[in-house]
């Protein structure tokens, strides 16, 4: 076997066979390489240090929340500060149906996004009637109101203790193996979301979303049905986020509004989008892993101080990296949801 490193490629020679692999930077942009890495990570962690699997799951889920949130932000041209509301909707829908009606996770998977879509549709006119700061503040309020509701109707939602006894999604006996399967399911959800949103953001519909982002009134005057685009992107993204609530409910076997609805959880999601790079769907993955691992490291090293240190470190990072981690890479490119086609003369 012989390995030869050339300027632009690696050449393997085994016996009479020869394999070449280009190492020019343009080949590195192949998404399959990164998908491969993401698939390998849980397996490596499983064999090296299994407790870390829960952090990997957290990272995947944070990214899976941030990706539809990016779609919602781009589609409505407004920043929604309450994505955790839909996690709550999906989670409670799954938990209540599982506990009270004994539905299995497959059936609750149908119900949770439906509940998310329904509430998303009901809330979507907000993106038409409110804008800017008012929209952000209103969306920020809803999860907090929902949290209050879980306390007021404690008989149903068990606001203080949380709902428990939800059917687990996976149960193969070994705790470690369970975690590995959960890691792959969370990764699958995240990759499916990435694929869907990426397709949408490269399609003709992305162009009208981009126009709405820049100037709604002008977009409206050149034939874009602004309200329709806003309602659809809001509703669909809400449905997608609610699936994460469903996963949380069946993953932990318990669901409590106190964990997901307060501002601290929103801060994490918000930071994922900011650290990854605003409205960069690939950046969401970078951000998700960064935040999940940073939180884990802080909890293990600083203990009680971590809730204070976590936002401080993130604020410093935001000052140093205003464009986010992925933004550093994207700096020379236009927004990724806009295909920059070069037309030949």
């Amino acid at each position, binding site marked *: 076997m012989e390995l030869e490193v050339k300027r632009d490629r690696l050449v393997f020679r085994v016996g009479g066979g020869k394999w070449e692999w280009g190492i020019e930077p343009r080949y590195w942009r192949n998404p399959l390489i990164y998908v491969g890495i993401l698939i390998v990570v849980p397996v490596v962690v499983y064999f090296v240090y299994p407790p870390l699997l829960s952090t990997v799951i957290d990272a995947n889920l944070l990214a899976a929340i941030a990706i539809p949130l990016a779609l919602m932000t781009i589609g409505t041209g407004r920043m929604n500060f309450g994505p955790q509301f839909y996690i709550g909707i999906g989670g409670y829908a799954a938990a209540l149906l599982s506990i009270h009606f004994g539905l299995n996770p497959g059936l609750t998977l149908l119900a949770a996004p439906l509940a998310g879509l329904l509430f998303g549709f009901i809330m979507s006119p907000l993106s038409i009637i409110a804008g800017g700061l008012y929209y952000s503040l209103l969306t920020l309020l809803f999860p907090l109101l929902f949290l209050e509701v879980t306390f007021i109707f404690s008989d149903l939602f068990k606001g203080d203790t949380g709902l428990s006894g939800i059917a687990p999604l996976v149960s193969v006996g070994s705790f470690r193996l369970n975690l590995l399967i959960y890691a792959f399911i969370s990764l699958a959800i995240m990759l499916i979301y990435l694929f869907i949103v990426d397709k949408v953001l490269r399609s003709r519909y992305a162009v009208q979303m*981009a126009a709405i982002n820049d*100037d709604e009134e002008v977009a*409206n*005057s050149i034939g874009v049905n602004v309200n329709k685009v806003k309602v659809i992107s809001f509703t669909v993204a809400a449905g997608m986020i609610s699936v994460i609530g469903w996963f949380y409910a069946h993953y932990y076997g318990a669901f409590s509004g106190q964990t997901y609805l307060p501002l601290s959880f929103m801060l994490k999601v918000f930071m994922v989008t900011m650290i990854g790079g605003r409205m960069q769907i690939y950046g969401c993955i970078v951000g998700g892993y960064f935040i999940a691992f940073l939180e884990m490291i802080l909890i293990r090293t600083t203990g009680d101080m971590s809730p204070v240190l976590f936002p401080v470190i993130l604020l410093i990072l935001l000052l140093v990296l205003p464009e986010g981690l992925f933004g550093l890479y994207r700096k020379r490119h*236009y927004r990724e949801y806009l295909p920059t086609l070069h037309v030949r003369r």
Partner: protein
Amino acid sequence: MVEILKVTNVSKHFGGLTAVNGVSLSINEGETVGLMGPNGAGKTTLVNMICGSLSVDSGKVEFMGKDITRLPPWKRCKLGICRTYQIPRPFPELTTLASVVVSALYGKDRPNRSFEDAMTEATHYLEFVGLFSKRNVLARDLTLFEMRGLELARALATEPKLIFVDEVMAGLNPVEAEKAVRLIERAKDQFGVTVLWIEHVMAVLMKAAERVIVLHYGEKIAEGRPQEVANNPMVIESYLGKS
């Protein structure tokens, strides 16, 4: 000639201020009509009402014989009404080409139009306004003159029947202004659009318009051929004041 736009007694009030008061006008197909008046006369408000950006308090707007008074702006655009803005409003984060692609895709309903078709067509309009070489430049990086060109390309790409050109001369130097005027005249010839040209520089409309409508304090004070209007004592008074 076919009447393309008919506005009957439209009014608009902002609180106690009457911006447009009972204005009626009609535009025939293929015409270039000038809408002029001093600053604050209500020209842009009137256009906003015709395009749907502002609701009409009272009155009626008809386009090609269809009542469009309550239609949203995007539906009016699909019928064939489009406009440019007094202060250019490009999509700052989009490239020049992409800005025009939005219009080409979502302007007039064209069945089976693909994204690629729209791209090809958008390049055509960019070439028309002389921005083809800047197709991959972000719209916010263009000069004022280029932004006006982009606005025109964006409006033309919706395939309008009637186009509102709002104070195209504002902020341009004489050479650029001359180019802009020629561009609009070429657009009219090449694409067969009807033009309603809002301007308060009289000299431009004297040359370009076939008919001029003058607004003052939200009311129509004169209408007719440019030369007649220029000699109208009420118009002179509105521009220069009483001696």
